[in-house]
């Protein structure tokens, strides 16, 4: 718990405002959410919403794939492609996260959860693959 409080205080310095998208039933107003910086922070603030804190994913009517011990992460291009462009129900994060945030998160996942692909993914690596975001909401 103490760790969470310290983390939140550190993150509050970089709030990012997000306006509600057009269309759909939404809350209204804007939200300013602390901006995660390190790979661990980005994973905790974004990725684990679906992939779970242990990165093992989960299965119901469909499956959220495990990132833990996942050989598909051996090459950096595949995770960069998925994180920037999305895959199936997973949205692409271009325009939502910065290239640096995505690079940090991918590096973090590739070096944790039973993955040992030591070479860091850089902001430039992400920039090479990321397509500009498309407009629209629903």
């Amino acid at each position, binding site marked *: 718990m103490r760790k*969470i409080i310290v983390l939140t205080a550190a993150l509050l310095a970089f*709030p*990012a*405002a*997000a*306006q*509600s*998208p*057009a*269309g*759909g*039933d*939404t*809350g*209204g*107003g*804007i*939200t*300013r*959410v602390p901006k995660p910086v390190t790979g661990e922070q980005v994973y*905790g*603030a*974004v*990725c*684990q*919403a*679906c992939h*779970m*804190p242990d990165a093992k994913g*989960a*299965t*119901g*009517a*469909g*499956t*959220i794939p495990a990132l833990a011990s996942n050989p598909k992460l051996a090459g950096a291009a595949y995770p960069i492609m998925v994180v920037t462009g*999305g*895959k*199936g*129900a*997973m*949205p*692409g994060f271009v325009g*939502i996260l910065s290239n640096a945030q995505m690079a940090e998160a991918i590096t973090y996942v590739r070096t944790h959860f039973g993955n040992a692909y030591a070479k860091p993914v850089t902001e430039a690596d992400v920039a090479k693959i990321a397509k500009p*975001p*498309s*407009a*629209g*909401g*629903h």
Partner: protein
Amino acid sequence: MDSGVRAPTRRQLLSAIAKVGGTAALYQAMTTLGHAAETQFHGPPNLQGARPGSTVIVLGAGLAGMLAAFELTKAGYKVKILEFQNRAGGRNWSLRGGDTYTELGGATQNVAFSQGNYLNPGPWRIPHHHRTLLHYCKQFGVALEPFIQFNHSGWVHSSQAFGGKPVRFNTAAADFEGNIAELLAKSVNAKALDDTVTQEDRDKLLEALKGWGMLDNDYKYSASLRAASHRGFERPGGGGVNGAPIPSKDLYGLHDVLDPQVWTSMGFFMNHEMQTTMFQPVGGMDMIGKAFAKQVEGMVTYGAKVSKIAQDDKGVTVSFTDVATGKASDLKGDWCVCTIPLGILGQLDLQVTDEMMAAIKAVPYSGQVKIGLEMKRRFWEEDDFIYGGHSFTDQEIALISYPNNNMFKDGPAVLLGAFARDMGAYRLAGMTPDQRIEAALAQGSVLHPTSYRKEFASGASVAWSRVPWTLGCCARWSDEARKEHYQTLVGMDRRIVLAGEHASYIGCWMEGALLSSIDAITRLHKRALEA
């Protein structure tokens, strides 16, 4: 007026047009008469004359699937529905005391709300122009009550304006409008608009700014009874000796009211979908799902996890396993209406065209989070005079929404303690259910500092990214994906047609699911008759 010939009423006229020209002509006529442009609903599909013995498999017992089953059965088809959950309704859902909910990842919540209280994790409000849904609610006997969408007394909270303190919506809105009006009046009087606005219109504009922005005779937005009548009083008018009202004095300045939280909160209510009047079912949103389920009783196989949808010239075969026993089965039919959310559908073994498969995989889902908090008393009513409606905050929870029923009652009530989206939703979804409640209490306490924690009794949360049977809340089409894939997605793929909010332009609303369903089965029926 009375010429001896009785002119038809508008209703009689429209009814005659419908009989002669069908619903399309009716729609045309209604549009011409100026009162139908709010919906594409032209009445139930009234399909008739299915070939004897024709069968349809419907996948998913949400509203789209159940409506398809209901209308196709009326048309003469034999319909069977496969549903993954042990409950009909899909995202039309309410959680009540005694309910248990296990999300992906395994966290289980035992909902402890008092009798009669509920959280609607999915849909929770119905616009007055969602005519399809309102039509079937009436037909199936679902009682509706007003949903209090717009409450001038709700709080607007920005961490970066008004000293981080919540202010009343009416105060923030009044001061925004007052400041803008003053600024514009200043431009007019400084002749800055002389080139673009005629003298006559400048005079009218100044009059409007004074009236709309509550400006004084010098076109200033200043502390006055006029301004107070919009933003609130320091002492409102009363009776007797001290009856005279005292206007509020400390008007907020331009810098504060230009914080985007103010105008986005105001702008929220301008959206067509968010305009009053809105409705909710009496007793919880799932009253709608339950009423639909009654219409398709006996057709639904629950706990059926679909793994494969195959088709050939003769029919469709759906392979599924019983979630409880693991027993595998095949179900054969002539046609299939598939309402499975796209994120799940894209993971199945589907015999559809490559283009259809690409379309199914092209649409990401949003992941809203809702948190219901039961409070021991209605402090928002008793202490803050807030009866229904919303308070907006720029924190992760995004809003607090107050119950629209049982006002003035003693005893516990459930408020919506979060309707998070985007980054706020990811953060809350990534937490354990207990952590979510703690976050909702901490953030809600900023708006209701004295009572929020003190009156809290129990809570429940649904993070849609972890809902086992949807893997998300709603389809989020980008303009690009719409252009490339939408027509393929809604087109018939031989014997299979998709339906649901994802196959509509009213995404994330029950209305979109129903209109999509009507369109899908109308085309399916036509194709079946042609085959």
